[in-house]
């Protein structure tokens, strides 16, 4: 055993507190340590090279790097070590930055002592380490994308264009997501559907993309490379293959209900397409509102008129099983419901609307044909008050985060309003303007120069006074309270995860943050991967994002998927549990606690014992903790390794009792 230890300065981050020279001196004295040195930035190219050269020069067999957090650079160093010919599982990383210099910045002596003790402990562990080889599993060359907004569309196209098959599942009747609802988009003001609809059509036409609209993922089993997915196709009551999209049925349908695509501001029939450019252009009967029930058919107007006989009132939900190698989650966002924003009179007054309502009201394809009319009386509002951060940046609402896109779309709304009603007055209440993006600040400056009055301050109350809405607020720049009479109030509600995101997260066994957005592994280093291998994130499902960011991230997720699919097999961490058949009594305790159901009890030669499926095992160690016989161990973190490590840590603190000393010899 020839151990090399490398201690990093991290500039002044570590060396400013920890006395690295002392650390090196102390460690160099230890048994089997052939070489010990310090270096200013080990993660740098020359730093890594030093490690590699020393490995070759001194024939080192085991390596310790004492530096920052392994979640930051664990992979960097294990790759470097591997490239120099040392098995990466014979490498240990010790965190002497977060755990020493940062937490004990006021006590350099303690920080130094602790650094030494931590390195000693990992050395003790390393003595019992074994070289491990990654596990290979076959990889199905097909991908599931959940959510058909711009994020899901981009991911699907990128992957399909690279030649792999994609199943795209969208729960609403059409592709497009929120972006389909938007009028023009900041900062370029290009028409949203002009950039979106060609992509939607491309998805529908693409030979490699299997599109499931009006469908939901019901069950997900398996692991990276081999997920078994159950998709439920909701009944449209219209046979897609027969429907020509002529729309004859719509004219005769007697049922009129609010159109959700128009935010309830316009109407649709019980048989409908959400919007004229919908993809696929197949009609759907919403059976909640249709006069018919499963048992009783009262109205058959659409059935009678439909030329190709596409209508089938007896259609049933249909389940489809698919197998895929990877999954991308792109389920998008929603706006905080109005009921949560009562201080702004939301839900109370018709003329207090959300930003998405406003998008529909200014959209040429919207319910008013692009003429801005306020909901209460249809008049063209001569003034508008926009209220930003409605629910966002508000710890008391439980939403301390910034929703990120509202500053920009409010500026856009103000500008479009000025175009529609040039003599109209616009007020924007804001906390700060956050316009960090390419050409974003310039855009806001342009709007501010366009006769839009920006008021820095919060609104306390909104109420009706005769025909007008009154907004009470404060202008924190002048320190005065302000009262604005206006025709229309537009809120920028907080962005929240889409409905059902929690359940989906459970199904996929991926974590969400405290607000319900899906969590990535590391925001900086692995921003599109989840803790479940083979499952990736794209778009506003992860956090509030505008379109550019969404698209960029979607392409990033696609490229991660492609680099996975470029191999025939998926490589899995070998840090999995294994059973010592000799000791195992087959009691099954481990099987019960395994959260991933990786363990079965098998019978062989009249003996029962536990068997681990390495492709499913996540190396969590629950089994190892519960086994009374110490028959099951996680590779790389065996009982032997961990107790050696703990003992080494305690050694400096307490005198090792005789008994423990005895035990050590085992």
């Amino acid at each position: 055993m020839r151990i090399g230890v490398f201690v990093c300065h991290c500039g002044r981050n570590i060396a400013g507190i920890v006395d690295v020279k002392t650390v090196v001196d102390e460690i160099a004295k230890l048994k089997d340590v052939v070489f010990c040195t310090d270096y200013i930035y080990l993660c740098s190219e020359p730093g890594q090279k030093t490690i590699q050269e020393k490995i070759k020069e001194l024939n080192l067999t085991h390596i310790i790097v004492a530096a920052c957090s392994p979640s930051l650079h664990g992979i960097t160093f294990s790759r470097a070590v591997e490239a120099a010919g040392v098995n990466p599982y014979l490498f240990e990383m010790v965190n002497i930055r977060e755990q020493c210099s940062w937490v004990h910045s006021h006590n350099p002596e303690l920080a130094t002592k602790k650094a030494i003790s931590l390195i000693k402990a990992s050395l003790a562990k390393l003595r019992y380490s074994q070289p491990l080889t990654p596990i290979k599993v076959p990889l199905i060359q097909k991908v599931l994308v959940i959510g058909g907004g711009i994020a899901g569309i981009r991911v699907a196209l990128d992957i399909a264009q690279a030649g792999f098959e994609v199943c795209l599942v969208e729960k609403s009747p059409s592709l497009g997501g929120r972006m389909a609802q938007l009028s023009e988009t900041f900062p370029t003001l290009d028409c949203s559907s002009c950039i979106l609809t060609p992509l939607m059509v491309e998805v529908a036409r693409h030979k490699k993309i299997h599109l499931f609209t009006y469908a939901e993922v019901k069950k997900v089993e398996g692991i990276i490379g081999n997920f078994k997915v159950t998709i439920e196709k909701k009944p449209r009551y219209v046979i897609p293959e027969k429907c020509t999209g002529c729309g004859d049925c719509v004219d005769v349908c007697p049922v009129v209900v609010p159109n959700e695509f128009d935010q309830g501001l316009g109407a649709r029939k019980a048989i409908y397409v959400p919007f004229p450019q919908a993809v696929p252009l197949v009609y759907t009967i919403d059976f909640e509102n249709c006069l018919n029930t499963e048992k009783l058919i009262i109205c058959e107007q659409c059935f009678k008129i439909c030329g190709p006989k596409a209508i089938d009132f007896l259609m049933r939900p249909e389940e489809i099983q698919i197998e895929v190698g990877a999954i991308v989650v792109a389920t998008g966002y929603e706006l905080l419901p109005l009921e949560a924003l009562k201080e702004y009179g939301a839900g109370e007054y018709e003329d207090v609307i959300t930003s998405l309502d406003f998008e529909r009201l200014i959209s040429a394809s919207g319910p008013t044909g692009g003429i801005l009319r306020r909901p209460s009386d249809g008049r063209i509002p001569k003034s508008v008050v926009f209220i930003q951060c409605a629910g966002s940046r508000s710890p008391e609402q439980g939403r301390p985060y910034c929703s990120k896109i509202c500053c920009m779309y409010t500026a856009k709304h103000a500008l479009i309003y000025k175009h529609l009603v040039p003599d109209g007055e616009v007020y924007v209440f804001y906390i700060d303007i956050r316009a960090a993006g390419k050409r974003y600040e310039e855009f806001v400056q342009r709007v501010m120069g366009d006769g839009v009055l920006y008021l820095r301050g919060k609104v306390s109350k909104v109420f009706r006074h005769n025909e007008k809405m009154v907004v009470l607020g404060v202008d924190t720049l002048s320190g005065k309270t302000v009262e604005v009479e206006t025709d229309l109030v537009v809120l920028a509600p907080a962005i929240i995860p889409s409905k059902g995101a929690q359940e989906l997260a459970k199904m996929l066994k991926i974590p969400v943050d405290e607000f319900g957005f899906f969590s990535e592994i590391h925001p900086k280093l692995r921003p599109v991967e989840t803790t479940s291998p083979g499952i990736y994130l794209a778009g506003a499902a992860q956090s509030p994002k505008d379109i550019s960011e969404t698209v960029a991230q979607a392409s990033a997720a696609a490229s991660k998927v492609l680099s996975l699919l470029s191999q025939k097999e998926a490589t899995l961490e070998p840090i999995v549990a294994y059973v010592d058949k000799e000791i195992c009594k087959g009691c099954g305790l481990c099987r019960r606690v395994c959260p991933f159901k990786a363990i079965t009890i098998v019978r062989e030669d009249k003996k029962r014992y536990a068997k681990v499926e390495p492709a499913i095992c996540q190396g969590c160690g629950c089994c190892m903790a519960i086994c009374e016989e110490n028959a099951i161990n996680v590779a790389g973190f065996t009982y032997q390794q961990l107790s050696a490590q703990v003992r080494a840590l305690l050694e400096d603190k307490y005198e090792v009792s005789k008994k423990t000393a005895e035990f050590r010899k085992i």
Partner: protein
Amino acid sequence: MKMNIGYFPGCTLKATALNFEKSALEVAKILGFQLEELSQWHCCGTVPSLSQDDLLKQISPVRNLIYAQSLGYNKIVTLCSMCYNTLAQSNLFVKENKEKLRKINQFMSEMPDYDGGVEVKHFLSFLKEQITLEKIRESVKTSLSGIKIACYYGCLLLRPKIIGIDDSEQPKILEELMQVLGAEPVYFPYKTECCGAYHTVIKPDIVARRVYRILENAKENKAQIVITSCPLCHFNLTKRQEEIKKIYPDFKGIPVVYFTEIMLQALGENFKCV
């Protein structure tokens, strides 16, 4: 039905708000229950308990809760909005902080320990939940039909949210109550605007200006009477009308009464509050 309910009056109801207490006790009797004044009580603890990290300030309210507990009540009713706010907040505070409760109990070693078992209710929610609006509607003798009423909440019944008896932004419990009495609650967006509270002591003109806007809003919406449940609001809304006249000479007054007074007018016989 005979129901005896522990009742915590608080100081103001024994001084400036005598008619509040009198009418409430009467209303209870008509509705078939009795508000039994706790045989022992003292200051509710009032404003200071709002600063939650100061344990000493929880002692007054908790001590009152101990009285209630020792007398065998698991629920007490208050009338004054401030008493409700103080006691309810304190109660919640000790229920959620077992360690702090232990310290408070230790401090009052001469008293039995408080176990967190008393529920603090405001008369309004008690009426709605326990007595039910239906029962009140049935008990109406003189319908108030045609009377337009502005329901003023102030802040203490509604904030902070955790002890608010209704939605803090758009409450409607008073309106619902007025409706079952036959009265017509008016649209009143100023119902939760601040009355100016303690500014009345040193800056009465601030209060006058605020109250002016509140009352004007009520009148503009055709209210004939304003009702409230807070003695301080009541004071500001009535007594400061004189100041208002000095600032706004055109101002014409409007009667402001406790909600229990208006209830008594509907439920009782020949009771005239205005």
